[in-house]
């Protein structure tokens, strides 16, 4: 092995090990935090740092190949869908009225959204009908 190979190996393994550590930290946080609203935040450590570092480490391992291109595509998709999924979970809790302590002033927003959804439902029962 040449010196360059060693540098590549060491860099990729540092990234992979750090990514794994962040995954474990996220899991610990999910287990240890007391309620739903703090657990959502623990998951986002896994989502951002863990995912990014693991993908980076695997990219360095693969070198300039098609696999790296695929890994980058996977990384970009997770970079967009991860926060979207987190938002969907948090939003579902919010709209169903499961609010954290001291956030009761936001109940008016839920009522507003509820009203809007009912109006929209009444207006278009079958949005695709007659259009295709």
């Amino acid at each position, binding site marked *: 092995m040449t010196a360059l190979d060693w540098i590549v190996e060491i860099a990729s393994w540092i990234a992979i090990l750090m990514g794994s550590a*962040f995954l474990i930290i996220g899991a610990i946080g999910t287990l240890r935090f007391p309620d739903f609203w703090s657990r959502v935040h623990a998951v986002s450590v896994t989502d951002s740092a863990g995912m990014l570092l693991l993908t980076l480490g695997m990219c360095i391992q693969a070198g300039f190949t098609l696999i790296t291109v695929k890994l980058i595509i996977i990384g970009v998709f997770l970079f967009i869908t991860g926060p979207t999924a987190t938002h969907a979970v948090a939003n579902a809790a919010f709209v169903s009225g499961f609010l954290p302590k001291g956030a009761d002033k936001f109940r008016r927003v839920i009522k507003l959204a509820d009203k809007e959804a009912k109006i929209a439902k009444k207006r278009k029962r079958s949005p695709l009908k007659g259009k295709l």
Partner: protein
Amino acid sequence: MVNRMIQGIIAALGLAALWLLMSGLYKTLIFVLGTLSVLLTIFIVNRMDKVDGHKLGYDIGIFATIKYLVWLMVEIAKSNWAVTKVILSGKKPENNNMFEVPVTQKSEIAQVIFANSITLTPGTVTVESEDDNFIVHALDFAEGDMDALADMDARVSAIETDNAGAVS
């Protein structure tokens, strides 16, 4: 009409390139299947456009977006470290807080980028979007958080092009 056709051809070329990168196999059968999939996708996308007629605008500058992404990576690293410290400290997170953040972006895509940036930085989650502000939940709320989010808001607004918001 001609415009639509050019858009379709560009989309087909993009999809073909993506498919070639993904498969890595170059046999006749695979090529035929790939061509059929690309054509089917273009057909379905074209047909779906009749349903809502909603124009998708990409009113963001590409170099400004790359610059913003680099800045975002640094922010993600910083707030990851902060949340990691909270997790490993063994204490209960006490400063949970839900608050409103004003939004100044005009185009939908920039608003989505801002909301997803808030969620992507650990410690803050966008919960609900209203007309001109987001409802955000923070794990460990500190005094400077509102200023940091206002700074992020200004940076996302800066990547919009001048005619943003005109299309939608």
